[in-house]
C-alpha cells in the first residue's frame, strides 16, 4: 500500500491505491507508543455563518458579530483530542489571526487542547497560498508528528490550505477524513470518496484534512473553560518565524472582485388538473432538463 502524497501544488495527485479495509480486533489494538508525540491542529476563526447575513457596500455582515471556530477545524480538534485520550498525544492548536482571535483559540484549549499558538500580523488579505506558506514555516519549526485540520473553512469553502501545506512539507496527505485511528506507528484514515469509503495508511509525519462528518465536536464545559486560563497560549508575530521577513510581506495570489448574494430560487409552478394534464406537464418539465442532468 502506498500513501497519499502531494506531487506539486499545481497538480495534486494521489499515488495510493485504496483498499477496502477489513477491520479485525487484533489489528486495532491501541498502543501507548505515542507518549510525548504531538498532533498539531491548524484552526481558523471564521464569521458565524449560521447567523443571518446581509450584503452592504460589497461586503458581508453577519448578525452575530463575534467570530467562531471553523466547524471543520473543530472536528479536526475533536478527533485529535480523542486520539490524545487513547494514545497520549499532546494536542497543540495553531491559528493565524489578530490578537483578539485569542478568545476563539481559547475555545480550543477549553475543549481540551494542551497548548496553543496564535500567529499574528499576517499579510493583509492573506489567501490560501499565503496561509499555507506561513503554516509550513511554523510546522517546520515546531516539528509535530501529524497535522490534522479541517478540509476547508466554513466561510469561503475554498479548501486549498491543507493541500498546499502538505505540498510545502512534502508530507503524505489524506483528504476528507471521516474516521482516524492510530495503530502500529501510523494513522489509519477512513476517507469519504464520491461513492465509497477507503482506509488509508498514513505514516508519521503526515497531514490529514477532515470532513465535518468526522464527529460531533464536544462543547467546552465550564470546568474546561476555567482550566483553559491556565494553559499556555503563545502569541507569536509571523515575522519572527524562520523566513519571517518574507512571510510577513507575502502578497496574495488571488483577489476577491465582488461579493453578491446567491440568486433567489425562482418560484415553482403549481400544476392542477386531471392525471393527463399532470403527466403532460411533468413530461414538459422533464424535457426542459439538460440531458446530462437526467439520471446523473
Amino acid at each position, binding site marked *: 500500500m502506498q500513501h497519499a502524497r502531494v506531487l506539486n501544488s499545481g497538480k495534486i495527485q494521489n499515488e495510493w491505491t485504496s483498499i477496502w479495509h477489513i477491520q479485525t480486533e487484533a489489528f486495532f489494538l491501541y498502543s501507548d507508543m505515542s507518549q510525548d508525540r504531538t498532533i498539531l491542529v491548524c484552526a481558523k476563526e471564521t464569521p458565524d455563518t449560521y447567523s443571518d447575513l446581509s450584503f452592504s457596500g460589497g461586503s458581508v*455582515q453577519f*448578525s*452575530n*458579530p*463575534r467570530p467562531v471556530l471553523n466547524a471543520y477545524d473543530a472536528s479536526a480538534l475533536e478527533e485529535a483530542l480523542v486520539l490524545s485520550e487513547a494514545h497520549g498525544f499532546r494536542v497543540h492548536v495553531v491559528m493565524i489571526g489578530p490578537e483578539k482571535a485569542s*478568545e476563539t483559540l*481559547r*475555545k480550543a484549549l*477549553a475543549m481540551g487542547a494542551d497548548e496553543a499558538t496564535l500567529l499574528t500580523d499576517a499579510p493583509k488579505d492573506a489567501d490560501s497560498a499565503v496561509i499555507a506558506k506561513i503554516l509550513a514555516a511554523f510546522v517546520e519549526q515546531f516539528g509535530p508528528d501529524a497535522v490534522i485540520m479541517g478540509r476547508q473553512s466554513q466561510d469561503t469553502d475554498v479548501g486549498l490550505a491543507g493541500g498546499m501545506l502538505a505540498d510545502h512539507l512534502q508530507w503524505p496527505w489524506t483528504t476528507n477524513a471521516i474516521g482516524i485511528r492510530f495503530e502500529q506507528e501510523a494513522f489509519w484514515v477512513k476517507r469519504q470518496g464520491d461513492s465509497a469509503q477507503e482506509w488509508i495508511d498514513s505514516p508519521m509525519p503526515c497531514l490529514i484534512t477532515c470532513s465535518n462528518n468526522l464527529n460531533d465536536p464536544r*462543547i*467546552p*464545559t*465550564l*470546568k*474546561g*473553560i*476555567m482550566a*483553559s*486560563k491556565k494553559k499556555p497560549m503563545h502569541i507569536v508575530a509571523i515575522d519572527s518565524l524562520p523566513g519571517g521577513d518574507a512571510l510577513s510581506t507575502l502578497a496574495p495570489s488571488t483577489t476577491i472582485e465582488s461579493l453578491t448574494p446567491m440568486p433567489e430560487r425562482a418560484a415553482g409552478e403549481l400544476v392542477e388538473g386531471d392525471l393527463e394534464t399532470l403527466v403532460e406537464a411533468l413530461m414538459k418539465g422533464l424535457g426542459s432538463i439538460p440531458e446530462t442532468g437526467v439520471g446523473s
Partner: protein
Amino acid sequence: MFNIHDPYLFEDELAEDDRMIMEAAREYCQANLEPRALRGNQDEIFDPEIPKEMADMGLLGASIAEEYGGGGASQTAYGLIAREVERVDSGYRSFMSVQSSLVMVPIEKFGTEEQKKQYLPKLASAEMIGCFGLTEPDHGSDPSSMVTRAVPTDGGWVLNGAKTWITNSPIADVAIVWAKVKEEEEDVIRGFIVETSWKGVSTPHIKDKMSLRASETGELVFQDVFVPETHMFPDIRGLKGPFTCLNSARYGIAWGTVGAAEFCYERSRTYVGERKQFGHPLAANQLPQTKLANMLTDITTMQLLAWRLGQLRDAGKVDPAMISLAKRHNVGKALDIARVARDMHGGNGVTGDYRVIHHVINLESVNTYEGTYDIHGLILGREITGIQAFVPKG
C-alpha cells in the same frame, strides 16, 4: 452596524470567561434542550438525563467554589447560563436555579464543613437532586407565619409540617427545609438539610399543573421526621437564611427571563418575515414593526439591567431591593413580550410548534414565584417611602 439581538452590545462588555461560558451554555441548550422542549412541556416530561447533562457541562452550582465541586465562575456567568436555559424553557431553568441557588448556595453559605463536603459535590454532579421548602399551603408571600416546626429530641430534632409548590421535590434526594424552633421562648426560623429517604418524609407530585410542565413540582410533607443535629445549619437564624437563597434565585430569574423574551422576539421576527397576508409579509406593516420595536426596546432594558446587576453582585455591592427591581421588571416585561408574540403569531401562536405560548404560560408562574410582581413592588415601595405596606392597615 445595529445589532438586532444585542442593540447596546452588552455581550461585548462581558469578561472573556463569562462570554465563553455563555456561548458554551447556548450551544448545549440549543443542541440538547431545545429538541426536547415541545414534548417536555406538552407531555409533562422532565427527562431524567437532563440533570446529568447539565452537571457534565458544569451548569449546576456554576458559581459555587471549585473545592466543593462547583465551577468557581462569576455571578454574571451564572446569570448568563440562566438566560440560555430559560431561552428554551423556564421549567428547565427552574430545575437549575433550585439546584444551584436554593440548595447549593445555602449549604455553601450556612453549612458546616462536613455538610459542604457531604452534599455539594454530589449536587454539582447531579448524583443528588435538591429542593427547597419555604412556601406552605397557607403561607406564600408571608413566610414568617409558617407552621412547620422542629422540636428538640435526643440527638436532633423532630420535624412536622408541609411545604408546597416545591420545584424538584418528587425527584429530590435532599431538601433544604425552613422551620420554626423555640429559642428562649421565641419562635425562630432555622434551616435543616433533610434527606427525602428518611422515615416520615413524603414528596407527592402536584397534578394537572398547566405551567412549567417540563419541570417537576410537588409537596414536602413531614410527619415526625427525625433530623440529626448534624443536619441543622449552625448559625443562620430568621428569614435572612431563606431570603439569601431567594435573592440568588431571583437574580437568576432576572437573567433567565431575558432569554425567554429574546426567544419570543426572535420567533415573532421570523414569523412576520415569512408569513404573507394581502400579498405582503406581515413585517411590511406598521403594527408588526412597532410591536417588534417595543419588544427590542424592552429586551434591551432587560439585558442592561441584568448585566449591571451581575456586575454589582460580582463586586459585592448588591442590595436585595436591586434584585427585586430587576426580577419584577424583567419578568413583567418578558410576560408582556411573550403575550404580544403569541398575538403576532395569530392562530399559530396557540400551537406547540412555535412554542411562544409555552413561554407565556411558563412566565405566568415565574411572575408569581420567588416573590410575586406585586410583592416586589411593595419591597421597592418600602425602600422608596420608608413605610412597609405588606401588612394591611385596615
